[in-house]
């Protein structure tokens, strides 16, 4: 049938993205082009953004299938540095396993693992300076672990217990630590990106030497905040690294719902005139090298970099999620870029600096240290068992000074407590 202008066209149809495989189907990663390690060139970190366009469609990889580090992006780290990186990644995984179990045992309300993505936070933190400021999302516990934050402190937060520096106010894993350069995690996605840019602008305007780094997932690049951050970053050439952790899944929505079918996430940089790198996120050496490149670029007033870390969320979004309901169970084993810890381990063994026995011993030792930290943290209590914060602290820190209406409401709450527990109002101890 012809339309009002006499054209004979098929009717319009709406495209709803669909992932290659659903539960019960064979996992299909045939659309992923895995660039051979060492093949992607390494431009100078001061190169003009328009000369870097191809980087957004390539894949920086250092470790080849045989476990050798090859090509221009090889950061040539010492065996000691490699072993420390491996250890930080293994510790992150051991911590995750223990805390996931603690949630399943009813000791806290919620937990989020970063299994399969350890290289992103850990290798990046090794490449950044200790004084650089991190604006993480919710899956970068590896930053705190790498910077040496005591595991007990992290667990206290997860348990919302007496030792929780955040006074039991935040959902588990939404850490905050000025001491470790780790900005308070928000549950609202990507708000941290323009904040990181603002911090970096302040650092630049004060003639400081510190840079900022921020993380978000591929799914939340769809948020307006992402684009606001990119615009500010390019306009003021802010010394900031914007990391998009493309782990393929935003809860149950595959990357196609953030525009991943049409282009790469690194390519978002091109429209802003920002340097964009696309990196094998499961290759710790590639992640390290790309971050070091971006950090050097930022620190020499050459502006921001967007890094897409191509990786895979090996487990559920959180303890509240069941990925078997929406994706092929085979995906984890078929993922073409392997496991970040196994790959770095293989590399160290290949170059003769590590072996299976040492690895097994390390895993055992780390599991023991996490267990010991957990025991220590649980002395401060676990969520839902006993009173960990005095009731009146609910009203503190809303403002620097408590205004009259909050004092009045605080008194009301204390009166409620007194009615419920006449013995001092603090409830069962």
């Amino acid at each position: 049938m012809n339309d009002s202008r006499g054209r004979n066209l098929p009717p319009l149809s709406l495209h709803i993205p669909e992932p290659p495989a659903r539960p019960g189907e064979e996992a299909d990663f045939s659309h992923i082009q895995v660039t051979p390690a060492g093949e992607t060139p390494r431009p100078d970190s001061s190169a003009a953004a328009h000369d870097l366009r191809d980087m957004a469609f390539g894949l920086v990889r250092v470790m080849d299938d045989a476990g050798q580090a090859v090509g221009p992006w090889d950061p040539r780290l010492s065996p000691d540095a490699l072993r420390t990186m491996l250890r930080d990644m293994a510790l992150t995984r051991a911590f995750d396993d223990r805390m996931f179990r603690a949630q399943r045992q009813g000791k806290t309300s919620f937990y989020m693992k970063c299994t399969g993505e350890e290289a992103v936070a850990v290798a990046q933190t090794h490449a950044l300076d200790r004084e650089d400021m991190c604006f993480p999302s919710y899956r970068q516990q590896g930053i705190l672990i790498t910077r040496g934050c005591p595991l007990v402190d992290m667990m206290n937060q997860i348990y919302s217990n007496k030792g929780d520096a955040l006074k039991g106010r935040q959902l588990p894993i939404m850490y905050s630590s000025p001491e470790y350069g780790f900005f308070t995690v928000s549950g609202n996605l990507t708000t941290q990106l323009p904040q990181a840019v603002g911090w970096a602008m302040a650092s630049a305007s004060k003639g400081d030497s510190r840079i900022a780094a921020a993380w978000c997932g591929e799914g939340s690049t769809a948020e307006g905040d992402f684009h606001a951050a990119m615009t500010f970053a390019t306009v003021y050439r802010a010394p900031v690294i914007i990391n998009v952790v493309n782990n393929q899944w935003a809860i149950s929505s595959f990357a196609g719902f953030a525009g991943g079918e049409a282009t790469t996430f690194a390519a978002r940089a091109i429209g802003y005139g920002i340097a964009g790198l696309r990196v094998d996120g499961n290759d710790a050496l590639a992640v390290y090298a790309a971050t070091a490149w971006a950090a050097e670029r930022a620190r020499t007033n050459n502006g921001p970099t967007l890094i897409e870390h191509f990786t895979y969320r090996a487990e559920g979004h959180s303890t509240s999620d069941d990925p078997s309901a929406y994706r092929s169970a085979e995906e984890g084993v078929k993922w073409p870029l392997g496991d970040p810890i196994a790959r770095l381990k293989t590399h160290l063994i290949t170059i003769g600096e590590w072996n299976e026995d040492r690895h097994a011993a390390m895993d055992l030792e780390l599991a023991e240290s996490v267990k010991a930290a957990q025991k220590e943290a649980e002395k401060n209590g676990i969520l839902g068992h006993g009173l960990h914060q005095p009731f009146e602290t609910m009203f503190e820190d809303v403002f620097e000074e408590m205004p009259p209406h909050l004092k009045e409401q605080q008194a009301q709450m204390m009166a409620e407590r007194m009615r419920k527990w006449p013995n001092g109002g603090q409830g069962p101890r």
Partner: protein
Amino acid sequence: MSDAPTRRMNMIEAINSAMDVAMTRDADVVVFGEDVGFFGGVFRATAGLQQKFGKTRSFDTPITECGIIGVAVGMAAYGLRPIPEIQFADYIYPALDQLVSEAARIRYRSAGQWHMPITVRSPFGGGIFGGQTHSQSPESIFTHVSGLKTVIPSTPYDAKGLLLSAIEDNDPVLFFEPKRIYNGPFDGHYDRPVQPWAKHPASEVPEGQYTIPLGKAALVREGQDLTVITYGTMVHVGLAAVEELGVDADVIDLRTLVPLDIETIEASVKKTGRCVIIHEATRTSGFGAELAAQIQERCFYHLEAPIERVTGFDTPYPHSLEWAYFPGPVRIGMAIEKVMKD
């Protein structure tokens, strides 16, 4: 204070002077926003600041309110004391998440590890033929949010003193500037010639530093028979209406909505037993509803008549019918008659 040199200023000049003083005293104070830098703002509030303090202290931004406030949060985390401008309060909505979920909550969620000394300046309110996107009064959206302070001045003197307090405050403050009275007070009679600030005593403004504490209302007229509670442009409209009707009224200029000076309100309503609340914002869930609720909680047995609210209507702000929308002398007069009847 009395020895300090003063100068006649309109409200824009007073606001500009406040930022000038703050930027001189504290190198961490920075101002930015759309058209704020070289040009000095569409209302000229930041005029001259870039020339005086340099481009890193006063600068233009991309047109993204989300970005403007998000960047302010990051700067505050670094240790700066940012004063972002949202060009019109009507444009503030893209920044809501950064204000409500971030700036307002960071002290609480980090248990005081970080705080957000941000003052968001934004012209608000109608009466300038701005149509529905340059006339809104969104203050009650922010008074509803825990962790935000909301300040609205009504004179040049108050504007400077309150703005300096807001800048010194270590928590985020929404500083809404009633743009109808930037250049002169307004009695609500849109068909009469505009009066300049120069004839008003509160245009005599100290050139240096002084503050007016947040959370303290001003009793701008004292009377026995009625309490009129209002803020911003409507302070002047309300005062004029009271004089024209010959009612012996207390007129309270709230100046700060959160934290609210309920003591001043309570004392007045207990004295007069009658109360009219005036604001330009839409009626339903407006700040007047909060005031009426709190007054009946505290003063119910002193009230001689139901509390009356005089507000804008629950429609978008119309362009050609602006003066039919605006809560002017007629609407205020009807409310006062009603509340004074028995």
